[in-house]
């Protein structure tokens, strides 16, 4: 390991949130300190009730140059959206 602390990505679940959301990143020597640092950097205004941290190096990401083949084919497939059904009135808001 070099002299720099590794980078961690931080995910926080808010008190009304259903899922953890990515809020940013920080440096820390280990997972425990990463959670403490995340608590101090990202939850000081009462934003969260749960913290996940993951080493940035452990995240596998799609490549921006694959944008065309990955995402463009779905642009022309409106039938995949469930907008062609008549919803009975007594179902109410969905």
């Amino acid at each position: 390991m070099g002299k720099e602390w590794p980078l961690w990505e931080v995910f926080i679940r808010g008190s009304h949130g259903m899922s953890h959301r990515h809020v940013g990143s920080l440096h820390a020597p280990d997972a425990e300190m990463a959670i403490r640092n995340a608590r101090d950097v990202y939850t000081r205004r009462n934003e969260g009730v749960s913290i996940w941290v993951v080493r940035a190096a452990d995240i596998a990401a799609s490549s921006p140059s694959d944008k065309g083949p990955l995402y463009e084919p779905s642009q022309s497939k409106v039938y995949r959206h469930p907008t062609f059904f008549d919803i009975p009135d007594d179902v109410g808001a969905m």
Partner: protein
Amino acid sequence: MDRDAALFEFLLRQGDTTLILAQRIGEWCGHAPVLEEDIALANTALDLIGQTQLWLGLAGEVEGKGRSADDLAYLRDAWDFRNLLMAERPNRDFGHTMMRQFLYDAWAHPMLTRLAASSEPRVAEIAAKAVKETAYHLERSADIVVGLGDGTDESHARMQDALDRLWPYAGEVFVADDADEVLAQAGIAPHPEELRAPWTETIRRVMAEATLTIPDSDFAHTGGRTGRHTEDLGHILSTMQWLQRAYPGATW
């Protein structure tokens, strides 16, 4: 010494210690070695300022002369301050700052835990709020003492040096006087000696993990709790109080 006089003294000791320690660690704001520690130290300082407002606010109430927490913080001179000498020790390096924080937290946590069961409900209320903050401060400072103590040769040497320098200031908190006896009798605060065992246990456990050697000495500088301070306190006060001194009553 009657109950209220002892209680006033006690509240100043609590509030002045958190105030001066907060002022000291606040000096790191914008200067800490990494951004994450900078914010964490500022958070700790703000927690301690919050505790100060409660302790000194109640002190003014108990004194009954109409002095507010701000009056007590900004308009007293060094000899009226009752903070632990350890709180006013200069920061030196980051390791020294965190060692001081750990030695304080390891005492403050069991102290506040006991104060939460105080016979004086206003003291118990403040302690119940502060103990949660302090539990976190202790986890954090202990972790850093272990990380740096059991770190590189350089960080280990600095942490051992910090412990050796601070050790003679750590024991002040266990030396009881009349006010402490009155408070213990009334069930308002634990007897200072009662905290030595839990404190020592925490120190031994963390120092063993940090591979640091506890100095073989019981010598303790005293005086902070009775108003006899090192010259460092005057320097802190001149920074902290100059605005109220230069522009009395200034607000924003």
